[in-house]
């Protein structure tokens, strides 16, 4: 039987791409997104050094990041809860690339933490600091390192990073599931 695919297309090298006729343009696409009810309060909480969640009385979860509706129960959430801000590392990455895929020498520690006082696996993405590649692990207890109050603006970056909590035992083993 004949080859079904008769591929078409002219591949270009990076250099050829600059040689063939082309147009270069810079997009202008700027936004001012309304933060909305839930996130406005959350951001105000960050400014005050607090992590705020919303409680859903139907499924008894504390939603963090907060929202005004529970996506599982499809109902309005019921009230605000302040969390201690501590948590454990749910997962992490040691990144040698930045946002534009440029290579960087000193790696960024980034990951998801699950907050204490929230349901399992519920948390946010953030940086981790004061930790080495050898030490960092899933289940590691962490706490927020806040910017000084005068520098906080109501943004996720009001927290500089999360760092290991001293003297708290790791949940490393208990979190691991058995092989299926």
């Amino acid at each position, binding site marked *: 039987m004949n080859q079904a695919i008769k591929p078409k297309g002219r591949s270009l090298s990076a250099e050829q791409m600059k040689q063939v006729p082309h147009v270069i343009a810079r997009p202008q696409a700027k936004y001012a997104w309304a933060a909305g009810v839930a996130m406005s309060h959350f951001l105000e909480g960050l400014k005050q050094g607090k992590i705020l969640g919303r409680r859903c009385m139907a499924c008894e979860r504390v939603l963090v990041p907060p929202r005004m509706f529970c996506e599982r129960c499809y109902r309005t959430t019921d009230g605000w809860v302040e969390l201690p801000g501590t948590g454990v590392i749910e997962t992490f990455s*040691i990144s040698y690339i930045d946002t*534009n895929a440029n290579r960087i020498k000193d790696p960024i520690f980034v990951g*998801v933490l699950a907050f204490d006082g929230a349901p399992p*696996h519920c948390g946010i993405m953030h940086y981790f600091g004061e930790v080495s590649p050898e030490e960092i692990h899933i289940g590691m207890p962490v706490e927020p390192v806040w910017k000084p109050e005068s520098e906080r603006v109501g943004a996720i970056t009001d927290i500089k990073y999360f760092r290991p909590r001293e003297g708290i035992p790791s949940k490393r083993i208990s979190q691991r599931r058995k092989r299926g």
Partner: protein
Amino acid sequence: MNLGKIHKDVAVVGAGMTLFSRRLQETGKEMSWEAAQMALDQADLSLDDIDAVIMGSAPDAFDGVHKKGDWLLDGAGGTNRPYMRVYTGGGTAVFAPIAGWWHVASGLFEKVLVLCEEKMSSCMPHAQSAFAHIWDPILDRPLKPNLVWIFSMEMQRYMHTYDVRYEDIALVAVKNKRNAVGHPCAQLADPDITLDDVLTSEPMALPVRRLDISPPSDGAAAVVLVSEDVAYELTNEPVWIDGVGWCIDSTMWTNRDLAFPKFVAHAARMAYEMAGIKNPRKEIDIAEPYDPFDYKELQHLEALGLADPGQAAIMTREGKTQRDGELPVCPSGGLLGVGNPIAATLGIKVGELFWQLSGQAGARQVPGDPAVGVAQAWGDLMQFSSVIVMRRRS
């Protein structure tokens, strides 16, 4: 849902694709036309025969054209026709043919063209710059994330939860890049790649290394879908779309356990129920799961019910997923080997199953006369999946 009451059965009768390449000279419209032409040729149809066109294309921020669906439409054969774009991130690759399926299954159209296009090279300095805007603007973007992070975090969680070894995961990259050697459109085929090459490749965001990742690509792909009323008039070897499923999980990705993609399992369940598949491990002959990263192939095989959680890596190590293994997985070469022009990977998922199940896959042909295949794509923030079950009935 009303299983068993489908108005019209739908078959694939032609497929086409362009080269997958880091950069193509063709505009998105030209690429679309090239792929569409090939699919129409294979189905022995002309554009005149086509009742409607379905476009699948992922972020406008790659091509750099707002409303790119409408912009692309003349190259896709949409002029003066009902033309519909659907969009579910990376899941579009297998979702666009699902939309094509309901165009035909509803009885509204008899013959439709499904076209997927992606031109990632327009986005400078790197396709990653567009990915910077897939994140929540308040919670995530201020941290200046890179898309690879999210995969890295998911992979870490997956390895931890199921005790999966990186050496086994990396074997997927080796397999797929070798499989791609038989693919005339492949961008990263490598007959000589070794496990060691992957393990020692440049660290990107550990545990992810460079060779764990599929490359950004330009490309287009197309399939022609027709109703049961005309399928056998057009070919002796129609390949039927017997099951479709899709599912999206919550936006709040930091509120989920990333180890197991539940949304894939839900989508698979929907597609299997529709196709009457009760035991996928016995009934499926070929799998084309979405493999933008090597661990994703494993996670997806598990959620598709083709392996127990954590076991896909062992299947891979034992060679069961090789082209001549028990369950050939990504015989096309996958995204890791052929390339990853997001939506256009239609050509190596649904397109590949069409060629394999109709015996036209040439050097890539899976032995043993395969009759049933499953294709799957994944998209959004580790959140969406689309699944198609395809079957040759003879």
